[in-house]
C-alpha cells in the first residue's frame, strides 16, 4: 500500500492495468510462472476468437466436396489431429471448443459476480435476519456437491438438452448458482472487517445513509481481491462445464463443440488404441485450466508485497540504480 506512494504514484493508465502492472513488478521464477500462464491464456483466447479462421472445418462438419470424412482416422495431412467416431475433425472441434468455454466462463462469472457481490455487501453491512438467512442459504448450497447442483440446475433450466445458446446459458446459470456463495462469502467477510474500520465509522458519524456507506465507501474497498477470484473461478467454471459435458448434460455436438462431451465420446476409443480423440480435448482442458490458474496465483502472490520476491538480478539492478527520490 505504501509502495505506490513513492515515485510510481503517477503512472500511465496502461502501466496500472491489473495484468500489466503485475508483469512489471514480477521477477525471476514468479515472472516465469506469470508469463507461462499468460501465454497459455492468450492461446486459449486467440483460439476462441479466431476459431473459424484457424479451424479447417466446421465443428459439426463430417463431409466435404470429396465425400464423407473417414471415421476414427489417425492424424494425417488433412486431419492433423485425426477424426472422431462420427467423422468430425478433432482439431476443428478443439478450436471451436474454446469458444464455448469462453462464453460459459464469461456468462457464469459475470452473473455470479454481480449477484454475489451485491448480496455479500448488503448482508455483511446490514446484518440482522437477512444476513442470517443468506448465510444459511449459502451454506446449504455449499453442502451440495457442486457438480450435482449443476446437473440439477441444467435439468431444471433446459430439460437436459438444448441449442447453442440454451446450452451455454444453462451451463452458465448452473455454474452461477454454485459460485454465488463464494463471492457472497468473500465480499461479506471483507465488508464485516471493513465495517469496523475508522473510515466507515467516520462516514457513519457524519450521518451518511447505509446505501451511501455501502456503495461509496465499502464496495471498492471490499472488491479488491475479486480479480483473483475471477481468474481462479474461471478455471472452476471451465471444469464444471467439462464435467457437465462429460456426464452428458452439456451441449449437443451439432449445436456447439464442447471438450467435455468430446472426452465422453472418446472413452470407448481409448480402449481400442485410438488416442487422438481423447488426448487433444483433454489437453485443451488441462492447459487452459493451468494457464488461468497460473495467472490467478501469480497475481495473488504479486499483490501481496510479503509474497513478492525480487530475483537477485533485479535487486542488484535496483540497488545500483540508487535512490529514486
Amino acid at each position, binding site marked *: *500500500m505504501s509502495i*505506490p506512494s513513492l515515485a510510481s504514484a503517477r503512472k500511465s493508465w496502461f502501466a496500472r492495468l491489473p495484468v500489466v502492472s503485475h508483469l512489471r513488478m514480477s521477477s525471476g521464477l514468479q515472472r516465469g510462472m506469470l508469463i507461462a500462464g499468460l501465454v497459455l491464456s492468450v492461446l486459449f483466447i486467440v483460439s476462441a476468437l479466431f476459431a473459424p479462421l484457424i479451424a479447417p472445418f466446421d465443428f459439426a462438419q463430417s463431409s466435404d466436396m470429396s465425400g464423407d470424412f473417414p471415421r476414427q482416422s489417425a492424424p494425417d495431412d488433412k486431419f492433423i489431429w485425426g477424426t472422431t467416431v462420427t467423422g468430425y475433425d478433432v482439431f476443428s472441434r478443439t478450436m471451436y471448443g474454446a469458444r464455448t468455454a469462453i462464453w460459459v466462463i464469461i456468462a457464469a462469472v459475470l452473473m455470479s459476480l454481480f449477484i454475489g457481490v451485491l448480496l455479500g455487501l448488503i448482508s455483511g453491512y446490514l446484518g440482522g435476519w437477512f444476513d442470517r438467512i443468506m448465510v444459511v442459504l449459502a451454506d446449504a448450497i455449499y453442502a451440495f456437491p457442486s457438480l450435482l447442483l449443476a446437473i440439477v440446475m441444467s435439468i431444471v433450466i433446459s430439460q437436459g438438452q438444448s441449442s447453442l445458446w440454451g446450452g451455454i446459458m444453462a451451463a452458465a446459470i448452473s455454474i452461477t448458482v454454485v459460485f454465488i456463495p463464494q463471492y457472497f462469502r468473500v465480499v461479506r467477510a471483507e465488508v464485516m472487517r471493513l465495517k469496523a474500520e475508522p*473510515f466507515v465509522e467516520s462516514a457513519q*458519524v457524519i*450521518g451518511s445513509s447505509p446505501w451511501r456507506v455501502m456503495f*461509496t465507501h465499502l464496495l471498492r*474497498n471490499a472488491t479488491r481481491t475479486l480479480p483473483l477470484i475471477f481468474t481462479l473461478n474461471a478455471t472452476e467454471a471451465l471444469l464444471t462445464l467439462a464435467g457437465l459435458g462429460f456426464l452428458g448434460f452439456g451441449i449437443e455436438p451439432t449445436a456447439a463443440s464442447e471438450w467435455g462431451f468430446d472426452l465422453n465420446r472418446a472413452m470407448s476409443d481409448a480402449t481400442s488404441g485410438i488416442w487422438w480423440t481423447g488426448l487433444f480435448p483433454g489437453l485443451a482442458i488441462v492447459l487452459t485450466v493451468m494457464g488461468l490458474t497460473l495467472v490467478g496465483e501469480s497475481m495473488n502472490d504479486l499483490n501481496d508485497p510479503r509474497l513478492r520476491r525480487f530475483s537477485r538480478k533485479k535487486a542488484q539492478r*535496483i540497488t545500483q*540504480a540508487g535512490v*529514486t527520490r
Partner: protein
Amino acid sequence: MNKKLNTDPQSNDDVLRIEDLNIDFVTDAGAVPAVRGVDLSVKPGEILAIVGESGSGKSVTARTALGILAENGASHGAVYLKGKNMLTLHGSALRAARGRDVSMIFQEPSTALNPVYTVGWQIMEGIRAHTKVSKKEAKARAIEAMRQVGIPDPEQRVDYYPHQFSGGQKQRVVIASALALKPALIVADEPTTALDVTVQAEILALLRNLRDELGTAIVIITHNMGVVADIADRVIVMNHGQVVEQAPAVELFENPQDDYTKSLLAAVPHLGRNSASEGLSERPHSQAEVLVEAKGLRVHFPGRLGAPGFTAVNAVDLKIHAGEVYGLVGESGSGKTTIGRSIAGLNKITDGSLNVLGYEMAQFKERSFKPLRKQIGFVFQDPAASFNPHLTVGECVAEPLNVHRELNPSQTRAKVASLLEAVQLPGAYADRYPHELSGGQRQRASLGRALALEPKLLIADEPTSALDVSVQAKVLDLFRELQTELGFAALFVSHDLAVVDMLASWVGVLFRGSLIEEGLGSQVLSNPQNAYTQRLIASLPVPDPREQAERRKLIEELNRA
C-alpha cells in the same frame, strides 16, 4: 575488518560494535535508503537508547545485532557482537549467537508469545535449543528466570498459558525468556509502547534492576523521550537513517547540540508546562449552555455464549459546556473511548442517561439523531485508517457537506479549499489520495473534515497518539488555534496526561469505567487526590533525567504504601 577490530584497544570490551552500517531496501520504486553510515558501540552493563521518529532507521539498525534483516534489505558494513560479525554469520553459527549472546524483547507482548503453549514451554524452548539439559533442569531454570522478572508463584505459573497473564506480566515473561540464557546483550524494540504508563514504569524498573544485578547490556529502541530520560545511560539520536547526535543521557537533555535533537526535545509535551488551565481557579465556561450531560451513564458489552460481559463505563456523571475543552484521561480499558463513541452515537448506552445537544441517547434512533450529526465532529485515532483509500482528500473532506446536501458543487469546492487552508494544508492536496499524505497531514485533513459543518461539539479520540512527537506538537498547536478561533466545545480523549493538560482546561480521570477524579487540569495533575491518579501521574516519565530520578523515588514510595 577483523584486524581493525583487534587493533583498536578500546573496542575489546564492547559487547556490540557497529561500524559504518548502510542498509537499503529494495522496492518496486527503486532502492530506499534506511540506514546510512551508522557507527555505534555498547559496553557491558550499559543501557543505550536509540531514539528517533518513525522511519529513522532505529529498529533496522538495532535488529542487525541479531542478524535480522528483512528479505529485501541489502547491508554493507559490519556489526560485531562479541567480536563476531553478525552480518556474515549464517545457519547454525547465527542460531548459536541468537539467544545465548543476544536476545530480543518485542513491542507487543501479546503477539510475541504463542497462545497454544505454556509460558514455561516457551522459555524452556530457548534454553533447550542452546544447552543440553534435562527437561527438569530446563524447567527449573525457567522458573528461576520468571522469579527474576518478578512474577509471583513462578512454580505454579510456569504451566500457565499466555492468556492467563495481564499485558505487563506477559511482557515480563517475554523478558524472562530473553534472559533465560543470560545473554550479554538484550535488544528491546519499543518494549513499553503497547503498555499503560503504570505498567511501563514497572517494566522500566525491571529492566534497570536486571542491568544492575546481571550486568546485561541493553539497547532500547524508543520514540518516547520520557522513557529515555528514565532508563538510558547513553542516547543515540537517529534521523533519516543517520546518527545525528550521541551523548550521555543527562548531557543530551540538558545541552543538546544538534538542531534536530533540539527540535525533537522541544516538541515533547512536558507535564505541567504549557498547561491550558494555567492561572485558572475555577471552571471556565461553567455558565455556558450544557451540550453533553451524562447521569449515571453505564455501557455494558455482553459476553459471548455464557461468558460474562464487560462493563466499559459504570455510573459516570459528566457535563461538557459550550466552548469548553474537556480532557478525558485513562489507561487502556478505562472506558474513555467508549464514552466518546457513545456521545457520537457509535455505541448504545445500557443504563442511565446521556443527553447530547438535547437528544436523549437512551432512546437512540439513527433516523431521529441524524440531523444532530451535523453539529458533532469526530476525529479518529489512526489517520491512516480513517480515510477511504479510494477517495481523494478533497472528496473525503467534502463528504459531510455532500451527505447533508448543504452546498452546490462549486460552493463545496470552495469550502473544501478554505477548510484545507484552515488546517494549513496546500489546496492542491485536495486532489491527492490519503496514502500520498504523511500521518500528520492526514490527521490535519481529518480535523478539517470534522470541522466541515462547523460543529458545536468535536470529539477527538486519541487524535495524536499515532503520530511522531514533532508532528504531534504541530497538530496540537493547530487544534488549539482552531478551538480558540471557532470556539467549539471538545471532548479530548487521550492516555497521555501531558497532551491533555496542554489542551484541556477541565480534566476527568477514568479508572475501570468510573470517573474517579475531575477538576481543573493544573489542579488534578499537580495535586491529585485519588490514589490511582497519584500513581498514574507519578508513573508518567518526564523528559528530564534529573527530574525523572526524583519522580522514580516517589513512585517507589507510592508502590510501597
